[in-house]
């Protein structure tokens, strides 16, 4: 389902970084652990096709992301990969509902406000549908960004430090929500975190700090 194999990446002027191989089957959930700066986000970006590796292969479902580029890659990402960013990245000029329908639109899928509302309902924030991101609390915005990640029914959900800004109770809640939504889509869930509180919430773990 997700297979990252022998991938090396390079940022502008820095030396190549070798990333560990990852292999996850459909429906499997995995934590990506390690201190800040150890390459967790980089690995997520590679998995999302946001960062093109220098070498190696990245397979999502049956597609090798290194073999497609440009519009095809953007389209594939929009339809098959849901991303929960560390900084949430909700679009401030759009309402919560519009943020979700924009995700449908950008992926080239038919716009379905009912489905978008259903996704918000699953995360318990349907009543915030017509609010703007700035009018939401941190926890509500976090849920909204998860709703946006799952609205297109992705096969792969990537989350980057989804709990770092939350208190204990909310951190566990968000983790539970991610797991639930991934199960609902039968998607692969990959969560990058340095948050010790989440360490034992999921059985499958890759520790980048130990690997390097």
């Amino acid at each position, binding site marked *: 389902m997700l297979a990252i194999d022998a991938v090396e990446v390079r940022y502008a002027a820095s030396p190549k970084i070798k990333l560990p191989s990852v292999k996850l089957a459909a429906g499997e959930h995995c934590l990506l652990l390690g201190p800040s700066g150890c390459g967790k986000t980089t690995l997520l970006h590679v998995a999302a096709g946001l960062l093109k590796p220098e070498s190696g292969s990245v397979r999502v479902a049956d597609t090798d992301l290194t073999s497609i580029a440009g519009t095809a890659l953007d389209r594939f990402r929009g339809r098959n990969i849901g991303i929960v960013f560390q900084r949430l990245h909700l*679009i401030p000029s759009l309402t919560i509902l519009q943020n979700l329908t*924009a995700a449908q639109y*950008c992926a080239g899928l038919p716009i379905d406000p009912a489905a978008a509302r259903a996704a918000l309902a699953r995360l318990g924030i349907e009543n915030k549908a017509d609010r703007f991101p700035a009018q939401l609390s941190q926890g509500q915005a976090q849920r909204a960004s998860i709703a946006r990640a799952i609205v297109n029914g992705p096969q792969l959900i990537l989350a980057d430090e989804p709990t770092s800004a939350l208190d204990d109770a909310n951190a566990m809640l968000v983790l539970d929500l991610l797991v639930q939504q991934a199960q609902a889509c039968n998607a692969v869930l990959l969560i990058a975190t340095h948050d010790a509180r989440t360490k034992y919430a999921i059985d499958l773990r890759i520790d980048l700090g130990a690997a390097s």
Partner: protein
Amino acid sequence: MNLMRLSLADVRHRKLANSLHLLLLTLGVAIITALLLISTQISGRLERDADGIDMVIGAKGSPLQLILSTVYHLDIPTGNIPLDEANRWAHNPMVAQAIPLSLGDNTKGFRIVGTTPDLVQHYHGQLQGGRLWQQPMEAVIGAEVAKAGLKLDQPFVGVHGLGAGGHVHADHPYKVVGVLQPTGSVLDRLILTSLDSVWEIHAAHQHHHDADDHDGDHDDHDEDHDASHAEGQGAAPPMPGAAPGYDPSKEITALLIHYRSPLAAIALPRMVNSQSMLQAAVPAFETARLLQLLGLSFDTLRALAGVLIVTAALSAFVALYNAMETRQYDLAVLRSLGASRGWVVAILWIQALVLSAAGTLLGLLLGHLAVETIGRLANTARGVDLSGLVLLWEELPILLLPLVVGTVAALIPAWRAYRTDLATTLSGA
């Protein structure tokens, strides 16, 4: 949800910054539009009023003043000229038509012009009601004068001089016998009567002061009758003064001359200026001179408007470019959600176009509104009546402005958005 809505949502979201450069663009376009309208209408009006008048003969003085006073009816005349002297030039073989003008009185600021029906024909005046003057003290009024309140069959008195506050000729009331349709020329602002009416008033005026008898007055009447009667037949000589029994001591203000052939333009003005105590002035030349004087300030304003538009374009550019700094995340997020590079560029371009198109349309509207307001506030009796309710072909290039400004302003931000590295942008590095 579509590209348009994604773009517009952001325009709405940044109201303050966007309305600032919208304002700048609007003002720039409004000034250019207003200038275009005003200069076109003024020069168009000047040309139309002087159309077919090749030369004006009047008293010595400033040639510009002579043209302004007798062709445009804006300035005071340079003085009067003897009728027999004027007549000599009117019968010159190089002259096809000579229309005499006698100025001196006004009513409500509208000039009373003693002349022949040739003047009405010259400006293609059509009667809306009534008839042309036949007797002395009968008057035909232009459309603007009618609009100001004078009606058919209404008596009115002339006031000595060309502005309010002069001596009132209360004992010699005129009567409106005809109203002209609007011609869009200076004719609309004039009250036309026979030369005799003007002479009669001022002769009588003289008589009153000299405590003279009323016989002279009476003689005038008979003589006028003959003259206007002859005109009525259509086979009028170029000058009513040529009618038998005219008084050589009479004066007129000016003669509007139409040449028989273009060759006259070379010889006639020089002849008049050198061989008589009269002055010849050429409207085309004086109008060009006047426009040149005005043109300087039009050019200055045009340059100012240009600066405003460049500033507006620059501010649109800076605003878009700055917005990019924060917008980069949004656009990268859209990319992460599946939007292609092309879409992101399109979104920025649409934003820039929407803003500059709105600025341009608002500017055009404002410009027209401003000119219309100026036109309504300004005294129509003394100037060119301006209208904001006309569209000019020259405005078409202004419509291209948003395309150019918007595209240029969106170019660099769009290029940056196109080239942006998603991973770096999204991780907030």
